[in-house]
Protein backbone atom coordinates (compact mmCIF):
# COMPACT_ATOMS: atom_id res chain seq x y z
CA UNK A 1 0.00 0.00 0.00
CA UNK A 2 1.55 3.31 -1.06
CA UNK A 3 1.55 5.86 1.75
CA UNK A 4 0.71 8.68 -0.64
CA UNK A 5 -1.47 7.34 -3.45
CA UNK A 6 -1.20 9.28 -6.68
CA UNK A 7 -4.34 11.21 -7.54
CA UNK A 8 -5.98 9.39 -10.46
CA UNK A 9 -6.22 11.19 -13.77
CA UNK A 10 -9.56 12.84 -14.51
CA UNK A 11 -10.34 10.43 -17.34
CA UNK A 12 -9.68 7.40 -15.16
CA UNK A 13 -11.71 8.85 -12.29
CA UNK A 14 -14.62 9.48 -14.65
CA UNK A 15 -14.42 5.90 -15.92
CA UNK A 16 -14.39 4.57 -12.35
CA UNK A 17 -17.28 6.79 -11.30
CA UNK A 18 -19.40 5.56 -14.21
CA UNK A 19 -18.55 1.93 -13.42
CA UNK A 20 -19.59 2.54 -9.81
CA UNK A 21 -22.89 4.14 -10.81
CA UNK A 22 -23.61 1.21 -13.12
CA UNK A 23 -22.83 -1.29 -10.36
CA UNK A 24 -24.99 0.58 -7.83
CA UNK A 25 -28.00 1.08 -10.11
CA UNK A 26 -29.72 -2.20 -9.11
CA UNK A 27 -29.53 -1.12 -5.47
CA UNK A 28 -31.01 2.29 -6.29
CA UNK A 29 -33.90 0.67 -8.17
CA UNK A 30 -34.37 -1.82 -5.31
CA UNK A 31 -34.47 1.05 -2.81
CA UNK A 32 -37.13 3.04 -4.70
CA UNK A 33 -40.25 1.09 -3.63
CA UNK A 34 -38.99 0.77 -0.04
CA UNK A 35 -38.20 4.49 0.13
CA UNK A 36 -41.61 5.38 -1.35
CA UNK A 37 -43.25 3.19 1.28
CA UNK A 38 -41.14 4.90 3.94
CA UNK A 39 -42.19 8.36 2.73
CA UNK A 40 -45.85 7.39 2.82
CA UNK A 41 -45.46 5.79 6.27
CA UNK A 42 -43.70 8.91 7.59
CA UNK A 43 -46.59 11.14 6.56
CA UNK A 44 -48.89 8.83 8.54
CA UNK A 45 -46.85 9.79 11.61
CA UNK A 46 -47.39 13.46 10.61
CA UNK A 47 -43.85 14.07 9.47
CA UNK A 48 -43.81 16.77 6.80
CA UNK A 49 -42.28 15.78 3.44
CA UNK A 50 -39.26 17.95 4.31
CA UNK A 51 -38.76 16.09 7.61
CA UNK A 52 -39.10 12.68 5.96
CA UNK A 53 -36.58 13.61 3.26
CA UNK A 54 -34.22 15.06 5.89
CA UNK A 55 -34.33 11.78 7.81
CA UNK A 56 -33.52 9.76 4.67
CA UNK A 57 -30.78 12.20 3.67
CA UNK A 58 -29.06 12.25 7.06
CA UNK A 59 -29.67 8.73 8.43
CA UNK A 60 -29.73 6.63 5.21
CA UNK A 61 -30.56 3.39 7.02
CA UNK A 62 -33.93 1.92 6.08
CA UNK A 63 -34.75 -0.50 8.88
CA UNK A 64 -33.98 2.02 11.62
CA UNK A 65 -36.02 4.72 9.88
CA UNK A 66 -39.10 2.47 9.70
CA UNK A 67 -38.57 1.57 13.33
CA UNK A 68 -38.29 5.24 14.33
CA UNK A 69 -41.61 6.06 12.67
CA UNK A 70 -43.27 3.06 14.32
CA UNK A 71 -42.00 4.22 17.71
CA UNK A 72 -43.15 7.79 17.04
CA UNK A 73 -46.64 6.49 16.25
CA UNK A 74 -46.56 4.64 19.57
CA UNK A 75 -45.56 7.84 21.35
CA UNK A 76 -42.06 6.68 22.35
CA UNK A 77 -39.58 9.30 23.59
CA UNK A 78 -36.81 10.62 21.36
CA UNK A 79 -33.97 9.24 23.48
CA UNK A 80 -35.31 5.70 23.25
CA UNK A 81 -35.67 6.05 19.48
CA UNK A 82 -32.04 7.21 19.18
CA UNK A 83 -30.87 4.32 21.38
CA UNK A 84 -32.83 1.76 19.35
CA UNK A 85 -31.35 3.28 16.17
CA UNK A 86 -27.84 2.81 17.57
CA UNK A 87 -28.48 -0.87 18.30
CA UNK A 88 -30.08 -1.60 14.93
CA UNK A 89 -27.32 0.12 12.97
CA UNK A 90 -24.36 -1.12 15.01
CA UNK A 91 -23.98 -3.97 12.50
CA UNK A 92 -22.52 -1.42 10.07
CA UNK A 93 -19.46 -1.25 12.33
CA UNK A 94 -18.50 -4.77 11.30
CA UNK A 95 -19.49 -4.20 7.67
CA UNK A 96 -17.48 -0.98 7.53
CA UNK A 97 -14.31 -2.86 8.53
CA UNK A 98 -14.75 -5.17 5.55
CA UNK A 99 -15.59 -2.31 3.16
CA UNK A 100 -12.53 -0.24 4.05
CA UNK A 101 -10.40 -3.36 3.89
CA UNK A 102 -11.60 -3.81 0.29
CA UNK A 103 -10.78 -0.17 -0.65
CA UNK A 104 -7.29 0.18 0.77
CA UNK A 105 -5.94 3.15 -1.18
CA UNK A 106 -8.21 5.94 0.02
CA UNK A 107 -7.40 8.95 2.16
CA UNK A 108 -9.02 9.62 5.53
CA UNK A 109 -11.35 12.21 4.04
CA UNK A 110 -12.52 9.75 1.40
CA UNK A 111 -13.07 7.08 4.03
CA UNK A 112 -15.12 9.49 6.11
CA UNK A 113 -17.25 10.29 3.06
CA UNK A 114 -17.69 6.69 1.93
CA UNK A 115 -18.46 5.53 5.47
CA UNK A 116 -21.66 7.55 5.35
CA UNK A 117 -22.93 5.39 2.50
CA UNK A 118 -22.41 1.95 4.05
CA UNK A 119 -25.67 0.00 4.09
CA UNK A 120 -26.36 -3.73 3.96
CA UNK A 121 -26.68 -3.52 0.18
CA UNK A 122 -23.74 -1.24 -0.67
CA UNK A 123 -21.57 -3.31 1.69
CA UNK A 124 -22.61 -6.51 -0.10
CA UNK A 125 -21.75 -5.09 -3.54
CA UNK A 126 -18.49 -3.47 -2.43
CA UNK A 127 -17.12 -6.60 -0.76
CA UNK A 128 -18.51 -9.41 -2.94
CA UNK A 129 -18.69 -7.96 -6.44
CA UNK A 130 -18.20 -10.94 -8.70
CA UNK A 131 -15.74 -9.63 -11.25
CA UNK A 132 -12.92 -8.52 -8.96
CA UNK A 133 -11.04 -6.10 -11.17
CA UNK A 134 -8.79 -3.31 -9.93
CA UNK A 135 -11.58 -0.78 -10.50
CA UNK A 136 -13.66 -2.44 -7.77
CA UNK A 137 -11.05 -1.49 -5.18
CA UNK A 138 -11.16 2.19 -6.16
CA UNK A 139 -12.71 4.79 -3.88
CA UNK A 140 -14.12 6.68 -6.87
CA UNK A 141 -15.93 3.51 -7.97
CA UNK A 142 -17.26 3.16 -4.42
CA UNK A 143 -18.45 6.77 -4.47
CA UNK A 144 -20.44 6.18 -7.67
CA UNK A 145 -21.97 3.01 -6.25
CA UNK A 146 -22.89 4.56 -2.91
CA UNK A 147 -24.00 7.84 -4.50
CA UNK A 148 -26.55 6.32 -6.85
CA UNK A 149 -27.95 4.12 -4.05
CA UNK A 150 -28.24 7.22 -1.86
CA UNK A 151 -30.01 9.11 -4.65
CA UNK A 152 -32.53 6.28 -5.02
CA UNK A 153 -33.25 6.31 -1.30
CA UNK A 154 -33.69 10.09 -1.00
CA UNK A 155 -35.69 10.53 -4.24
CA UNK A 156 -37.94 7.59 -3.33
CA UNK A 157 -38.62 9.13 0.09
CA UNK A 158 -39.55 12.43 -1.53
CA UNK A 159 -41.94 10.70 -3.96
CA UNK A 160 -43.60 8.69 -1.19
CA UNK A 161 -43.98 11.57 1.25
CA UNK A 162 -45.57 13.78 -1.40
CA UNK A 163 -48.12 11.04 -1.86
CA UNK A 164 -46.98 9.77 -5.20
CA UNK A 165 -48.03 6.14 -5.46
CA UNK A 166 -45.77 5.53 -8.43
CA UNK A 167 -45.56 1.81 -7.76
CA UNK A 168 -48.63 -0.33 -6.96
CA UNK A 169 -48.55 -1.98 -3.52
CA UNK A 170 -48.46 -5.54 -4.90
CA UNK A 171 -45.52 -4.62 -7.13
CA UNK A 172 -43.51 -2.97 -4.37
CA UNK A 173 -43.82 -6.08 -2.17
CA UNK A 174 -42.35 -8.13 -5.01
CA UNK A 175 -39.63 -5.52 -5.65
CA UNK A 176 -38.42 -5.88 -2.08
CA UNK A 177 -37.64 -9.48 -3.01
CA UNK A 178 -35.24 -8.03 -5.61
CA UNK A 179 -32.77 -7.01 -2.88
CA UNK A 180 -32.84 -10.53 -1.43
CA UNK A 181 -32.24 -11.85 -4.95
CA UNK A 182 -29.23 -9.54 -5.13
CA UNK A 183 -27.80 -10.88 -1.85
CA UNK A 184 -28.31 -14.44 -3.09
CA UNK A 185 -26.69 -13.76 -6.45
CA UNK A 186 -23.65 -12.25 -4.72
CA UNK A 187 -23.31 -15.11 -2.24
CA UNK A 188 -23.98 -18.21 -4.37
CA UNK A 189 -20.75 -18.22 -6.49
CA UNK A 190 -18.62 -18.04 -3.33
CA UNK A 191 -20.60 -20.80 -1.63
CA UNK A 192 -20.10 -23.00 -4.68
CA UNK A 193 -16.39 -22.35 -4.90
CA UNK A 194 -15.39 -22.45 -1.26
CA UNK A 195 -16.29 -24.77 1.63
CA UNK A 196 -15.31 -22.05 4.03
CA UNK A 197 -17.77 -19.54 2.50
CA UNK A 198 -20.54 -22.15 2.57
CA UNK A 199 -19.79 -23.07 6.15
CA UNK A 200 -19.63 -19.43 7.29
CA UNK A 201 -22.86 -18.41 5.52
CA UNK A 202 -24.75 -21.51 6.71
CA UNK A 203 -23.60 -21.09 10.31
CA UNK A 204 -24.57 -17.45 10.27
CA UNK A 205 -28.04 -18.18 8.83
CA UNK A 206 -28.73 -20.83 11.46
CA UNK A 207 -27.46 -18.59 14.26
CA UNK A 208 -29.54 -15.64 13.09
CA UNK A 209 -32.70 -17.78 12.96
CA UNK A 210 -31.97 -19.12 16.44
CA UNK A 211 -30.90 -15.85 18.08
CA UNK A 212 -33.83 -13.99 16.52
CA UNK A 213 -36.05 -15.78 19.02
CA UNK A 214 -34.52 -13.89 21.92
CA UNK A 215 -32.66 -10.87 20.55
CA UNK A 216 -33.99 -7.99 18.48
CA UNK A 217 -33.13 -8.33 14.77
CA UNK A 218 -30.24 -5.84 14.95
CA UNK A 219 -28.38 -7.72 17.69
CA UNK A 220 -29.17 -11.11 16.16
CA UNK A 221 -27.54 -10.09 12.85
CA UNK A 222 -24.46 -8.67 14.61
CA UNK A 223 -24.00 -11.77 16.76
CA UNK A 224 -24.61 -14.15 13.83
CA UNK A 225 -22.13 -12.23 11.64
CA UNK A 226 -19.35 -12.07 14.25
CA UNK A 227 -19.74 -15.69 15.42
CA UNK A 228 -20.24 -17.01 11.88
CA UNK A 229 -17.09 -15.27 10.60
CA UNK A 230 -15.14 -16.53 13.62
CA UNK A 231 -16.36 -20.10 13.09
CA UNK A 232 -14.90 -19.83 9.59
CA UNK A 233 -11.42 -19.54 11.13
CA UNK A 234 -11.76 -23.14 12.32
CA UNK A 235 -12.06 -24.54 8.80
CA UNK A 236 -9.39 -24.25 6.12
CA UNK A 237 -9.90 -23.60 2.46
CA UNK A 238 -9.60 -20.58 0.25
CA UNK A 239 -11.91 -17.63 0.47
Amino acid at each position, binding site marked *: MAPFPQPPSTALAYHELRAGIRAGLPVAVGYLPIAIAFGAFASEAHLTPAEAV*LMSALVFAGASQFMAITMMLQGTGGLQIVLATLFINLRHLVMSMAVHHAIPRSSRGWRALLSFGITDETFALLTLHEAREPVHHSHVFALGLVGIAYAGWVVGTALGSWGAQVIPAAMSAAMTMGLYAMFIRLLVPHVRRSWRAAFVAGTSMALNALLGRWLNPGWAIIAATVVGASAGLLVGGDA
Partner: protein
Amino acid sequence: MNPRTVALIVGMMAVTYIPRLLPGLWVGRYRLPPAFERWLQNIPYAALGALIFPGIVRGEPAWLGVLGGITAVLLSLWDAPLVAVMVVTIAVVFTASLWG
Protein backbone atom coordinates in the same frame (compact mmCIF):
# COMPACT_ATOMS: atom_id res chain seq x y z
CA MET B 1 -39.87 21.73 10.36
CA ASN B 2 -40.51 20.84 13.97
CA PRO B 3 -37.29 21.49 15.97
CA ARG B 4 -37.87 18.38 18.13
CA THR B 5 -38.15 16.22 15.03
CA VAL B 6 -34.99 17.76 13.57
CA ALA B 7 -33.14 17.10 16.85
CA LEU B 8 -34.33 13.47 16.76
CA ILE B 9 -33.14 13.07 13.17
CA VAL B 10 -29.73 14.57 13.98
CA GLY B 11 -29.42 12.20 16.95
CA MET B 12 -30.29 9.24 14.74
CA MET B 13 -27.70 10.41 12.22
CA ALA B 14 -24.97 10.64 14.87
CA VAL B 15 -25.50 7.13 16.26
CA THR B 16 -25.73 5.69 12.73
CA TYR B 17 -22.74 7.50 11.24
CA ILE B 18 -20.25 6.99 14.08
CA PRO B 19 -20.20 3.15 13.89
CA ARG B 20 -19.92 3.42 10.10
CA LEU B 21 -17.03 5.86 10.42
CA LEU B 22 -14.84 4.35 13.18
CA PRO B 23 -13.34 1.43 11.19
CA GLY B 24 -12.46 3.88 8.41
CA LEU B 25 -10.34 5.89 10.83
CA TRP B 26 -8.54 2.79 12.13
CA VAL B 27 -7.85 1.09 8.84
CA GLY B 28 -4.33 1.39 7.47
CA ARG B 29 -2.92 2.69 10.75
CA TYR B 30 -1.89 -0.74 11.98
CA ARG B 31 -0.74 -3.85 10.18
CA LEU B 32 -3.48 -6.41 10.76
CA PRO B 33 -2.63 -9.86 12.11
CA PRO B 34 -3.25 -12.58 9.45
CA ALA B 35 -6.01 -14.21 11.53
CA PHE B 36 -7.84 -10.89 11.67
CA GLU B 37 -7.50 -10.50 7.88
CA ARG B 38 -9.01 -13.94 7.36
CA TRP B 39 -11.79 -13.04 9.79
CA LEU B 40 -12.50 -9.88 7.77
CA GLN B 41 -12.67 -11.97 4.58
CA ASN B 42 -15.32 -14.13 6.24
CA ILE B 43 -17.46 -11.14 7.22
CA PRO B 44 -19.26 -10.73 3.85
CA TYR B 45 -20.29 -14.42 3.77
CA ALA B 46 -21.49 -14.29 7.37
CA ALA B 47 -23.30 -10.97 7.01
CA LEU B 48 -25.00 -11.96 3.75
CA GLY B 49 -26.13 -15.27 5.27
CA ALA B 50 -27.66 -13.42 8.21
CA LEU B 51 -29.23 -10.76 5.98
CA ILE B 52 -30.88 -13.37 3.73
CA PHE B 53 -32.21 -15.79 6.32
CA PRO B 54 -34.66 -15.75 7.97
CA GLY B 55 -35.59 -12.26 6.72
CA ILE B 56 -36.54 -13.55 3.27
CA VAL B 57 -39.39 -15.67 4.71
CA ARG B 58 -40.59 -13.01 7.20
CA GLY B 59 -42.94 -11.41 4.63
CA GLU B 60 -46.58 -12.31 4.18
CA PRO B 61 -47.16 -14.95 2.97
CA ALA B 62 -43.90 -16.73 3.78
CA TRP B 63 -44.08 -19.11 0.78
CA LEU B 64 -43.57 -16.17 -1.58
CA GLY B 65 -40.19 -15.66 0.08
CA VAL B 66 -39.38 -19.36 -0.39
CA LEU B 67 -40.38 -19.12 -4.05
CA GLY B 68 -38.29 -15.98 -4.57
CA GLY B 69 -35.33 -17.56 -2.79
CA ILE B 70 -35.45 -20.74 -4.90
CA THR B 71 -35.77 -18.70 -8.10
CA ALA B 72 -32.77 -16.54 -7.19
CA VAL B 73 -30.63 -19.54 -6.17
CA LEU B 74 -31.37 -21.44 -9.40
CA LEU B 75 -30.61 -18.41 -11.58
CA SER B 76 -27.43 -17.74 -9.60
CA LEU B 77 -26.26 -21.36 -10.03
CA TRP B 78 -26.80 -20.79 -13.73
CA ASP B 79 -24.55 -17.68 -13.49
CA ALA B 80 -27.23 -15.31 -14.77
CA PRO B 81 -26.24 -11.60 -14.57
CA LEU B 82 -27.09 -9.79 -11.31
CA VAL B 83 -29.77 -7.55 -12.80
CA ALA B 84 -31.38 -10.51 -14.61
CA VAL B 85 -31.60 -12.46 -11.35
CA MET B 86 -33.26 -9.49 -9.65
CA VAL B 87 -35.74 -8.80 -12.45
CA VAL B 88 -36.78 -12.43 -12.99
CA THR B 89 -37.16 -13.04 -9.24
CA ILE B 90 -39.35 -9.94 -8.91
CA ALA B 91 -41.44 -11.03 -11.91
CA VAL B 92 -41.92 -14.56 -10.54
CA VAL B 93 -42.87 -13.36 -7.06
CA PHE B 94 -45.19 -10.69 -8.45
CA THR B 95 -46.97 -13.17 -10.75
CA ALA B 96 -47.30 -15.70 -7.92
CA SER B 97 -48.68 -13.04 -5.55
CA LEU B 98 -51.46 -12.27 -8.05
CA TRP B 99 -52.54 -15.93 -7.98
CA GLY B 100 -52.01 -16.47 -4.25
